[in-house]
């Protein structure tokens, strides 16, 4: 049963990426889409917070990092939405997920977490992947300049 929910999670997140591309094809404004997609969860979380039996207590430093990292997330969502206008949705989505490597690096530096061989292999693969993705984009741009009809 748990495995089924793993696959449901994959399907849900996959459909999320596809829905954002479909919205782009319908000329949805990137900023408006991010505002709308953040408004609903913000409202849901506010309701959940107000229902807390322990009351709402939030230290200033927690508030500060919430604003900083929330803004980071929204900027990333906006950048993704703009990027799929000029690039492929698969590449943008992959980049969103590859970004999971950044906090791992920061954790290793900040919290002295162990750098396992699995992580090293993952980082090397990610770096080579980013190189190939950028190379692919360069080739595509060149092809579009030479044969504009190819750009799709």
């Amino acid at each position: 049963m748990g495995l089924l929910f793993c696959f449901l999670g994959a399907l849900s997140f996959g459909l999320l990426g596809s829905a954002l591309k479909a919205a782009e094809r319908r000329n949805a404004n990137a900023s408006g889409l991010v505002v709308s997609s953040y408004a609903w969860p913000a409202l849901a979380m506010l309701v959940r917070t107000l229902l807390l039996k322990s009351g709402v207590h939030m230290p200033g430093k927690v508030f500060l990092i919430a604003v900083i990292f929330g803004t980071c997330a929204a900027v990333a969502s906006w950048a993704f939405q703009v990027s799929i206008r000029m690039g492929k949705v698969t590449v943008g989505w992959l980049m969103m997920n590859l970004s999971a490597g950044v906090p791992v690096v920061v954790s290793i530096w900040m919290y002295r977490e162990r750098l396992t061989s699995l992580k090293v292999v993952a980082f090397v693969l990610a770096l080579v992947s980013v190189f190939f993705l950028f190379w692919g984009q360069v080739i595509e741009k060149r092809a579009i300049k030479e044969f504009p009809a190819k750009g799709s």
Partner: protein
Amino acid sequence: MWFLLMLVILLTNGMSAFGLKMIAGWALPETVKYPYLTVWYAGGLAGVALPMMLRGLKVGKTEILWGGLAGALSIGGQVAMAVALSSGIPGHVVFPIAIGGSIFVVALAGRLVFRERMNTPTALGVALGFAAVILLGAS
């Protein structure tokens, strides 16, 4: 522009979830994550809404509908992962399946629905990136 956007995605999206880890390190009550997430979403909303308002852009019906769908799918994915984790499936199984699977679904939709074609370096990059994401999730 595209390269810059990819770098912005890598850095900002990567760091966006780091706050929960910082909170865990401060040994605060478990319930603090709810007000944290409220401010997190509201902060993100304001961060994009303010420049948008200054430019005179408005949120239309298309954005409300598709944004609502995106929000629902995002919450659906989070809930499904939470249920999988609480049913005893370890994180190193849940995360690679959920993240890797989502990339597979998007790649499939990109090819079949949106008719996006990839050149050889891009296809190689996607394959290697897919493997990297699976390993990162498993680690």
